[in-house]
């Protein structure tokens, strides 16, 4: 039943990960080089630019730790290399899980891992994670140049509506996944409500007590809290 995990953890996928991460770092170095040179040309100081580099690196530490926490939650159902790769390119943890969930759903399954999650369902999850990110990349590749030009000519769009639209589109998908536990109840519903409760507590802490560092970790920690409730519920109640 777990044989897909053996495949998911095979060396060839670690190798893919290494190739992709190498390529990402290559791109970062290329851009660092040309913008550093351009910076010198227009009169930015070396010290200023290196300070920006250091600040960028340091301010990433906490969110990167949050990514590792998310990675730990994904490893038991998707293996190590695929979540590693996916969390290092294009998307982010919630997107990847949503896409993996859609991949499972389109094979007629409601969850990740567990009985029925065969290697074919796993493959479907992986394909959908990859395909879902085509859109963003293609839009940037094809249109960024002209969008930039239009923005500098001050195109007027309603930024408030854009925020609402994005939130609404995401809520549309979240609802589909929330509807399953709502209609089926049981352990899935317990887990979902636990996650919602913990997130609400975090939100209160962040807003009322101004603990804004928690923001990065709130999602990962509520997921872990919710899954801890699942363990309590299945083993001790």
């Amino acid at each position, binding site marked *: 039943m777990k044989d897909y995990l053996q495949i998911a953890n095979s060396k060839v996928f670690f190798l893919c990960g290494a190739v992709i991460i190498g390529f990402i770092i290559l791109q970062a170095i290329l851009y660092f080089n040309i913008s550093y040179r351009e*910076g010198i040309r227009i009169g930015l100081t070396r010290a200023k630019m290196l300070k920006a580099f250091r600040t960028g690196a340091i301010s990433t530490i906490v969110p990167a730790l949050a990514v590792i926490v998310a990675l730990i939650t994904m490893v*038991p159902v998707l293996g190590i290399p695929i979540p590693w790769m996916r969390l290092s390119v294009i998307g982010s943890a919630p997107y990847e899980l949503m896409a993996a969930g859609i991949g499972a759903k389109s094979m007629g399954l409601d969850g990740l891992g567990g009985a029925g999650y065969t290697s074919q369902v796993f493959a479907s999850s992986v394909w959908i994670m990859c395909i879902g990110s085509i859109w963003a990349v293609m839009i940037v590749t094809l249109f960024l140049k002209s969008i930039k030009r239009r923005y500098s000519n001050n195109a007027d769009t309603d930024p408030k509506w854009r925020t609402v639209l994005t939130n609404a589109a995401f809520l549309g998908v979240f609802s589909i996944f929330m509807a399953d536990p709502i209609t089926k109840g049981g352990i899935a519903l317990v887990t979902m409500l636990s996650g919602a409760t913990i997130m609400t507590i975090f939100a209160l802490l962040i807003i009322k007590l101004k603990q804004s560092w928690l923001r990065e970790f709130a999602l990962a920690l509520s997921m872990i809290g919710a899954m801890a409730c699942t363990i309590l519920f299945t083993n001790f109640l």
Partner: protein
Amino acid sequence: MDNSYENKVHMIGRITLVIGLVLTFLPPVFLWLIYGIVPPLKNLMNGIISISSVMLPVSIVEVLTFTPMLGASAMYMSYLTGNISNMKIPSAAIGMEVAEVKPSTKEGDIISTIAIAGSVIASEIIIILGVLMIAPIGEKLGNPMIQPAFEQILPALFGSIGAYYILKEWKLAVIPILTAVAVNMIPGLPTAITIPICVLASIFGARFLYKKNLIKVTD
């Protein structure tokens, strides 16, 4: 001279994004070619329609939102590496802050590019260290006592993130949740139908509420 820098940025960006995108497809292609594992075309199409019905509108809006915040080179780097709102935007913002340059200026673009390059390199290294640490405990996570918890990862995620969005503006959530529960009652509907229905219902509902000035906008 000015234009040659801009052109170079776009050229490098376009080439690296396309190559990067192709590289991300190595795992599913290897699953297929080496192990012979591939989902049936019908299910795959179903999944493609579902994911695209969300990600196409979301991607368009996101690109339009991030473009004024980040320079072109910062955009190309952000879209190859992801984690934009939680890593790249904060790094760029604080980088411009410490270097005392303004966003949407030439200096701002260069500083944010450099800050994001730092962010990319640091985050990839930290995540690799994380993977090296997880590898030995990976086996233990499969323990039968805690394994059921990981199988509930989707309810855990959508409970948490759903609550977050509901707390932001609960009125937006009413229509999609009711729609989702309703379509969920009909057995056998493929996701290629249910997901677009919920996304569209949610967007139209939001448009109505927005026009009536019934929602407050945060973030």
